[in-house]
Every structure is written in structure tokens, then in C-alpha cells.
């Protein structure tokens, strides 16, 4: 079974600055996916970005990018030009690749990010 660890319970950043959220994981699988989800105060979880483990290139979605280091089992999220609307809880998540739990997400503990004006 895989495990996902987020070691930063809370982070804060000034508007327009850059912040990096950390995530480490453990798995015996060689090919897999990793996700970052955002949960604003409205509670609705939204997918921010995904990474496929077999791809060397780090995923990027507008102001969001990841630093994926497969050997170190590290998957950090960088948010550039932070905006007030980025204030939310962020979860790193690992979906099961097979078996009866196909797609089941294992989540990290979450990081609360606050963007200050």
C-alpha cells in the first residue's frame, strides 16, 4: 500500500510571491500518477495538476507547476504569482493503479495555504 506525507500543516505567502508545498510518498509501483487537489473554504475539491510517473518532464498548469523527483519519491507543488483565491487546503494524492481499489485516492494530511494581500 502506498503512503503520502505532507509535512507542512500550514504555509503563508504574500500576494504575487511564490510558494512551494512539499509532498513525499512511498510506493512499490513503477508506473503511477500523482495529483494535487485544492479544497477552498467552500469544501469542493478541485484537481490542480497531475503528473505521470513515466514522464520525465514536470507538469505545468498556468501558475502551478510540480517538481517531481521519482528516485527521491518527492512531488512538490510550486505556485507562482500567488493570488488571494489560492487560499485553500492543498492535498497531495496517490491513486491506486490496479486491483479492486482501482483509482482509490490516498491523500496526504493536507497543507493550509493562506495568501496575504
Amino acid at each position, binding site marked *: 500500500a502506498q503512503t503520502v506525507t505532507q509535512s507542512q500543516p500550514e504555509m503563508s505567502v504574500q500576494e504575487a510571491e511564490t510558494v512551494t508545498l512539499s509532498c513525499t510518498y512511498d510506493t512499490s509501483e513503477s508506473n503511477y500518477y500523482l495529483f494535487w487537489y485544492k479544497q477552498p473554504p467552500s469544501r*469542493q*475539491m478541485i*484537481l490542480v495538476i497531475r503528473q*505521470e510517473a513515466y514522464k520525465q518532464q514536470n507538469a505545468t498548469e498556468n501558475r502551478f507547476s510540480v517538481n517531481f523527483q521519482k528516485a527521491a519519491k518527492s512531488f512538490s507543488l510550486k505556485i507562482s504569482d500567488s493570488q488571494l483565491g489560492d487560499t485553500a487546503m492543498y492535498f497531495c494524492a496517490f491513486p491506486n493503479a490496479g486491483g479492486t*481499489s*482501482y*483509482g*482509490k*485516492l490516498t491523500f496526504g494530511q*493536507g497543507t493550509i495555504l493562506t495568501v496575504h494581500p
Partner: protein
Amino acid sequence: GAGVSQSPSNKVTEKGKDVELRCDPISGHTALYWYRQSLGQGLEFLIYFQGNSAPDKSGLPSDRFSAERTGGSVSTLTIQRTQQEDSAVYLCASSLAGGAPYEQYFGPGTRLTVT
């Protein structure tokens, strides 16, 4: 199009009562997942449906919890004889198919409070 919807958004119940939580997934999504979010336990998986079948019920915490899905669409999570430790936000998610590559779309959740 419409996203995943859940009802009720909030539910307060007395200890020992039964509750039903409903999830309406995105039309055409064959996979449906239930998760529970609580302060002490974080986000944890409860059950996974592929169509109307539940290949994985391993996350259901006790036999007081059950779930069904009908017509490959709506799902109901039932908690019998509720306990205070059942207080949490129950999240439902659906995806086009079961599997790691597929994005899961989440509903807004049902906040359950057991008094």
C-alpha cells in the same frame, strides 16, 4: 454541464438515529467513490463503485455503514445507529472510469453532526 451534487449539505442528527446521504454523479461517469473527511483522521476512502457493483468496500468503518448505487447513477450512503465519532464531512466523487489516470470530480460534501 452539471457537476457532482450531494444532499443534504448539512445534517444534524441525534445519536442512535439512521441517516442517508445522497450523491448524484456526473452523467456518464461509471466510477463513484465515497470519502470521509474528519479532523482526526484526515481524508479517508470508504467505498468504490464501478457501475452498480462495489469491488472495494474496505474503507467502511463498521457494519453500521452501507452504500448502494442504482442505475449506474445515484448512490446512497447509509449510516445506522449513528455515533458521535461518525461526525465528519462525507465527500462523493465520480470519474469517467475507474483507474489512476482519470480525474475524480468531487461534490461539495455533506457535513454530518451527531449530537
